[in-house]
């Protein structure tokens, strides 16, 4: 099934799945990643439990250098 979710401000059409699957599919290193899902942070251990649904909003963030 295909759904549209908003990732970092852009709508993306993709296969339904969990956050863990989305992260793995993008080749991201989980250790450095902060995931905000519909306004709340999802801990890495819970990424496999959250099934993405139509209209969800995700922010994929990481810590970078800054002053």
């Amino acid at each position, binding site marked *: 099934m295909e759904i549209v979710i908003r990732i*970092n*401000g852009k709508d993306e059409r993709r296969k339904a799945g969990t956050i863990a699957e989305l992260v793995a599919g993008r080749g*991201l*290193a989980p*250790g*450095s*990643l*902060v995931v*905000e899902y519909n306004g*709340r*942070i999802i801990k890495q251990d819970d990424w496999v439990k959250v099934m993405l649904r139509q209209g969800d909003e995700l*922010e*994929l*963030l*990481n*810590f*970078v*250098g*800054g*002053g």
Partner: protein
Amino acid sequence: MDEKLSIGGHFFTSRLFTGTGKFAASEWIPRMLGASGSEMITVALRRIDQGGTTENILDFIPEGVVLLPNTSGARTAEEAVRIARIAKAAGCGNFIKIEVITDMKYLMPDNYETLKATEILAREDFIVLPYVLPDLPLAKRLEDAGAAAVMPLGSPIGSNRGLLTRDLIAMLIENCRVPVVVDAGIGRPSQAAEAMEMGADAVLVNTAIATAEDPAMMGRAFGLAVEAGRLGYLARLAGQSKTARASSPLTGFLD
């Protein structure tokens, strides 16, 4: 002997705070921290860039160094609050440097939005360090709102121009109950020493260290300058005069 600096229940031996921005390679960060003695360092939070690197800046910060996430990128109080909550939920601790910037030329902090964000976050048990233009009435409002320190700028971020706001910072030092941390614009160790001689409680230096040819050595230089300036302040600087005050006896040699 000097006492440790206390902010939000944490105690700091070093009064030099540092930042993680602009290093040519992140491997410099732990070396700089070791050489400078700095015990608190800023980090920023950003959307990942698609296909970009996934280097984690936190991997370069040794255990025991306090993280000070900033809210850079925020244009409003609401955005700053959101970034602060994300940083805390991501395990960065309770400290937050509020940085709300709408002016893209001089990167002047928006004091009004910064105050609003401080009011909200201090109620949520954050240790709030607002980055502001030095303004005494505002600093008093920040204190009342629960700020753990105030961080006035010396000159625009990354400009290396030193304490252009010197007299305004002096008013904060004289009148604030909370620590005053001079942030932004300090470009050389002597300027850090100057801030500390004035009675600043600490300084935050990023660009001047990170963009030096040898950031570790520059970190050490700043660490020493901050300590020297602090001791100069504690020892009470002598007064100035226009004319000479002889330091040897004024009588002629053979009188």
